[in-house]
């Protein structure tokens, strides 16, 4: 009796789990079917069909972001605004689709993109070698620099340094700041986010931190928990290198890149880009 009962329940459970998979496929009949048939599972991630057609087919452009003023952040009503957010809205309108902003864990950005949980990464993303090799990137639209954040009372000790050797520097794991700090000979302490690097410096567990200039402006100083911190040097200048650039990331091989580049050229020509940039105070950084 028990055996039969159990065998029956197990069978029902299996059928249910299969049915659950089936429903998932039914929800997106076209792309799921095409993908399973056509996509090779050799890890090349090249979309089997036009990515633009895929996004237009489902009617929504899902933009992968983190809360990063002044590029992507929420206003008092919880709506996403910022230079990147506003441009993303304009781009979606240009494509004739809705836009949806999805906060993601930045460490997993490539997986988010390739698993189609988001359609693009548009969040003041520095175009490092790591980024450009793992996704299709747009032409750069903005410049950025990496700065050294230090305790305000020790700022004088860091003046005029030409190397970071012997210092332990907190950096965001996998960030452009980590690459810059390591190039200057620092011992890096990789942590989860740029915000966590500041906690390291504040708690005295690291000597200094390297973060984006745009972020440093928003996160430290008066009115924050980090009033005792200040930022001093531009690491890009220190290395004698040009400033970094921001770009938008799409799936490898995606035709959305061309769509975006055309959109961006048009936005520059019409003045929309500079107008939006001025709203958020980033007009100095925009690449024309």
């Amino acid at each position, binding site marked *: 009796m*028990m055996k039969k009962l159990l065998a029956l329940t197990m069978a029902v459970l299996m059928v249910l789990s299969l049915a659950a998979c089936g429903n998932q496929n039914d*929800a997106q009949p076209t*792309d799921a079917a095409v993908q399973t048939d056509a996509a090779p599972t050799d890890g090349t991630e090249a979309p089997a069909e036009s990515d633009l057609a895929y996004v237009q087919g489902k009617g929504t452009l899902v933009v992968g972001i983190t*809360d990063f003023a002044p590029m992507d952040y929420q206003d008092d009503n919880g709506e996403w605004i910022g230079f990147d957010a506003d441009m993303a809205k304009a781009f979606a309108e240009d494509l004739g689709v809705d836009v949806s902003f*999805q906060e993601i864990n930045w460490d*997993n950005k490539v997986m988010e993109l390739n698993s189609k*949980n988001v359609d693009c990464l548009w969040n003041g993303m520095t175009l490092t070698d790591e980024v450009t090799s793992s996704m299709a990137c747009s032409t750069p639209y903005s410049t950025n620099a990496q700065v050294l954040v230090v305790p305000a009372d020790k700022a004088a000790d860091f003046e005029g340094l030409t190397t970071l050797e012997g210092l332990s520097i907190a950096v965001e794991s996998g960030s452009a700041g980590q690459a810059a700090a390591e190039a200057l000979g620092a011992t890096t302490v990789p942590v989860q986010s740029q*915000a966590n690097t500041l906690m390291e410096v504040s708690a005295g567990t690291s000597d200094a931190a390297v973060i984006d200039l745009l972020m440093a402006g928003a996160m430290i100083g008066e009115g924050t928990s980090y009033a005792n911190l200040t930022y001093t040097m531009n690491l890009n200048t220190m290395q004698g290198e040009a400033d970094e650039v921001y770009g938008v990331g799409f799936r490898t091989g995606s035709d959305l890149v061309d769509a975006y580049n055309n959109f961006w050229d048009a936005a520059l020509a019409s003045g929309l880009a500079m107008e939006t940039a001025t709203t958020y105070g980033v007009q100095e950084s925009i690449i024309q």
Partner: protein
Amino acid sequence: MFAFFSSPTTQTVLSALNEGFVRTLELFFITLVGAVPLGLLIALGSMNRWAPLHRFARPKQSKALRAVLNFRPVSAICRLLVWIIRGTPLVLQIITLFYVPGLEHLFNWPSGESGRMMAVCIAFIINYACYFSEIYRGGIQGVPVGQQEAGLVLGMTRSQIFFKVTLLQMIKRIVPPMSNEVITLVKDTSLARVIALQEIIWMGESFMKGNRGISGLVWPLFFTAVYYLVFSGVVTLLLGRLEKKLEFFR
């Protein structure tokens, strides 16, 4: 102190933390509701003695052949599942369940917060069901055989014996170890932030980097401890009361 709690910044932070905590609670309760019965199913599965080839087994056959003939497929599958789930980190299971279907073009999770919540709930239910199943198994096997024999003597059917004798006594035995797992679950929910489910720790951390126009605040992260302590306190009290209520047969 009052000024601190009435300031607009604090109000904003607390409302965000509340929002995150609601998601934490949602995950907690869905996991319990799903994992408690699924765990029993897995426990029964791993104790299942069904061996389809058993009838061909003879005492004189070689050891290897008898092992094949006495193979119990249901039990083997359940134990394999328990081994895999208990043997790998929950955080890896969450990442796998959420990203691999999309990466391998199997299916896509619903877009937005709901898809993330669904994936994380399924990962938690399977994970906790496996832990629960071993507790159930211990509880069921800990009920003296004499109890079942007594049931047989009284003319009860096997299902009557299971539900009215074994299961009844098993429940009171498993309350302390189950309490342990449930309290662990309260805190394990924080792992969901790895796929950007905005539960309370995510919300607490978000104010360091910037959220709702506030950035560079550290205290919200540490303040989340208050929520966890209060909630696990309530859960502890409730489970303690349940344990007292089940103090029969003694």
